[in-house]
């Protein structure tokens, strides 16, 4: 349903993505893992045209276009069918939670207010934020803001939702509520790409895992296969490091 072919992106002379081929099927949850600086976030930002690739082709639904030479109107067509969840939520701070969720419907898709409000309330309910509809982002915790941001991304009924490290800016005790919402979305069959450091989430929820390093996809496999039987040396190293790390934390808390 979404496919990227031969994607190249560099900032200055530094190649951040060096020939990425990436594919997501309908209803699939793909987790993108990898160390910092591996290009995972840039991959999502190129797909959503927040960064302009030097080379590449994007095929999405019935749209297909070169990623480097593309006009505003075409970009907007792609984006109208995508949802995006940022690391830093990026809620509109001059609007309540409800208005944030409605905005894509009323301002961008010219939906009548009443209809949009109905959908927005339904989305807020889905993320467990219906009783905070009239709150401004500043009055919400990070986890709550991210749940509203997810509701905003879902409201426009996108074909795919891209998550850019959705829990990285949160206090550890707040990540759970966001991951729970995402799990629910996955169970409902939402097509999702999740760039994340949450190995547990990837293991439990993802159908497929893509492991990136140095602007390349190093390994790609079904989630179960990926964690049980990683093929590449580099993947094994990475998993060993992050997994012992999280286990150590687990022991600490149980001891304390």
């Amino acid at each position, binding site marked *: 349903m979404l496919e990227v072919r031969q994607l190249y992106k560099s900032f200055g002379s530094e190649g951040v993505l060096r020939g990425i081929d990436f594919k997501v099927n309908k209803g699939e949850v793909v987790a993108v893992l990898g160390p910092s600086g591996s290009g995972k976030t840039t991959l999502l930002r190129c797909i959503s045209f927040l960064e302009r690739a030097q080379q590449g082709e994007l095929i999405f639904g019935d749209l297909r276009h070169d990623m480097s030479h593309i006009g505003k109107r075409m970009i907007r067509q792609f*984006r109208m069918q995508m*949802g995006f969840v*940022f690391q830093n939520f990026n809620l*509109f701070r*001059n609007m309540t939670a409800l208005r944030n969720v409605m905005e894509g419907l009323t*301002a*961008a*898709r010219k939906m009548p207010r009443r209809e949009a409000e109905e959908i927005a309330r339904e989305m807020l309910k889905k993320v467990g934020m219906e009783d905070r509809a*009239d709150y401004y982002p500043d009055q919400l915790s990070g986890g709550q803001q991210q749940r509203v941001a997810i509701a905003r991304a879902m409201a*426009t009924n996108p074909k795919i939702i891209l998550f850019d490290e959705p829990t990285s800016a949160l206090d550890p005790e707040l990540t759970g509520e966001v991951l729970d919402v995402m799990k629910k979305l996955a169970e409902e069959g939402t097509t999702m790409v999740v760039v994340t450091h949450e190995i547990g989430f990837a293991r439990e929820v993802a159908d497929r895992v893509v492991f990136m390093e140095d602007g390349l996809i190093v390994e790609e496999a079904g989630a179960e296969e990926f964690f049980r039987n990683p093929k590449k040396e580099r993947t094994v190293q990475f998993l060993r490091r992050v997994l012992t790390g999280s286990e150590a934390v687990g022991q600490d808390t149980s001891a304390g």
Partner: protein
Amino acid sequence: MTERLANILISAFPDMLAAGFKITIPLTVLSFVFGMVLALLLAIVQVANVKVLKQISQVYIWFFRGTPLLVQLFIIYFGLPSVGIVLPAFPAAVIAFGMNVAAYNAEAIRAAILAVPVGQTEAAYLIGLTYPKLMIRIVLPQAFPIAFPSLFNNLISLLKDTSLASCITIVELMATAKQIVGRTYESLALYIEAAIIYLIFSTVLTWVQGFLEKRLGWGTKDVKPKRRSGLKAGI
């Protein structure tokens, strides 16, 4: 203080105050409104990176901030008639003051727009907003409270700068004071009296600024409008 001087000061007060209300304040308000509209355009073509217009805007700001207001006023009132553009004094003053304050306001607005986190712009594009909608619905409502203190500063400066209008035959507060000095030769006392009236006006403006900032949460980092009822209802 002699009785004569006291009488002069007492009888001058209502005259100066009247000139203030009839000329100084309308001149300030009209110039500022004109200056705000122009400033908004100047700022937006810069942040939107509109070719040519951006450069024009920069040159405009460079000129109007870099030359004395009195010179600008003279060019418009005394200079333009020689190329066939004859303006009455009051409109000439509104144009000169408005164009001048626009340069300063444009910089305040531009800086405020840039202070709105870029992440919100990205989010707006991703839910399908176009640039004008992004500006009107997301960026400007947040930029305005940030720019507010600087804009109000410029307003207070403008109020005082309108005294320059006395140089192009407009009988505003300062010119009224001059006329009374011409009749009575009490320059020290009368100019101090004029200063006090300016001070009263600018003090009131400062209060208005404080009131608006507190009431609407403007000019603070906190950009959301205060809505306590919503907060309570939610809990």
